[in-house]
């Protein structure tokens, strides 16, 4: 694992892996959309609105999955001080924030026809909103310092503190009385969902996962190049100062 944490080696690996993850994302999402709109039936209670589930539920899973990855990267940065972990965290946070925003927006659009309201301050919805603010806080904090390394460390501490919200979101529907329905797929017994609905749900979830990997690879590459550029500008600036200094002294 340490071998691939070298930025140069990572760049080569990322360039090779990216087309595959991007292709798989497009394939899974195209198949998922076909199943979601054409091959899956309407729900006997929710009717056609059940189709919102195929984008809302995978977005919610990704919001939690990305945050867990962010917390792992934060732990690696703080314990082993590996610079690539900081860049990975910076790259992942906006992607996670987008998935969380999608989860909240599509949830509201599903809530209005089903519950009669866009929003209620129940445990599940509120804890997901807190997750969205944690992502925004991470992004703001990581960019709040002149020295990006200090910003990365401060944001990593926030990410680790905020990871306590992940089990709260997961179990909020069991611990509190909420309007939100309980888990129907990630139950210990058989999933309470028919195969005709499970297939598009899983295809969309795989599509979102490959999308996350593809976009994160692009963003980590961007972060590595930005650091190289910064180092180059710093060394150029230092050499210009060094070259200018003797002239200034002689003048």
């Amino acid at each position, binding site marked *: 694992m340490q071998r691939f944490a070298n930025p140069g080696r990572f760049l080569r690996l990322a360039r090779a892996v990216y087309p595959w993850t991007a292709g798989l994302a497009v394939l899974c999402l195209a198949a998922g959309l076909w199943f979601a709109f054409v091959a899956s039936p309407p729900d006997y209670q929710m009717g056609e609105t059940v189709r919102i589930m195929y984008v809302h539920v995978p977005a919610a899973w990704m919001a939690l999955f990305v945050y867990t990855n962010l917390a792992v990267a934060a732990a690696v940065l703080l314990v082993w001080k590996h610079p690539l972990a900081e860049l990975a965290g910076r790259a992942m946070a906006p992607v996670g924030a987008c998935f969380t925003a999608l989860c909240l927006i599509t949830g509201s659009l599903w809530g209005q026809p089903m519950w009669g309201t866009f929003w209620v301050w129940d445990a599940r919805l509120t804890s997901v909103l807190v997750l969205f603010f944690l992502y925004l806080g991470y992004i703001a904090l990581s960019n709040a310092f002149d020295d990006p390394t200090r910003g990365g460390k401060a944001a990593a501490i926030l990410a680790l503190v905020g990871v306590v919200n992940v089990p709260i979101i997961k179990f909020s529907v069991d611990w509190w009385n909420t309007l939100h329905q309980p888990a129907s797929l990630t139950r210990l017994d058989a999933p309470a969902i028919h195969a005709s609905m499970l297939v598009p749900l899983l295809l969309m979830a795989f599509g979102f996962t490959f999308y996350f990997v593809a976009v994160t690879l692009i963003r980590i590459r961007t972060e590595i190049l*930005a650091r190289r550029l910064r180092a180059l500008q710093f060394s150029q600036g230092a050499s210009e100062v060094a070259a200018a200094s003797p002239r200034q002294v002689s003048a």
Partner: protein
Amino acid sequence: MSGEHSLFIWLSYGVAAIVLVGLWLASQRALKGREAELERAEAALPRTRR
């Protein structure tokens, strides 16, 4: 698909498409921008060292 709630369904997928495609394009654009910037900085490097 038509029905009394079709607006909510299309809005959900529309927002998802805009967010996901927008983020992908913005990330690609940022990468291309950084690559071009780095190329320019590296091209300028020998001149400053001379």
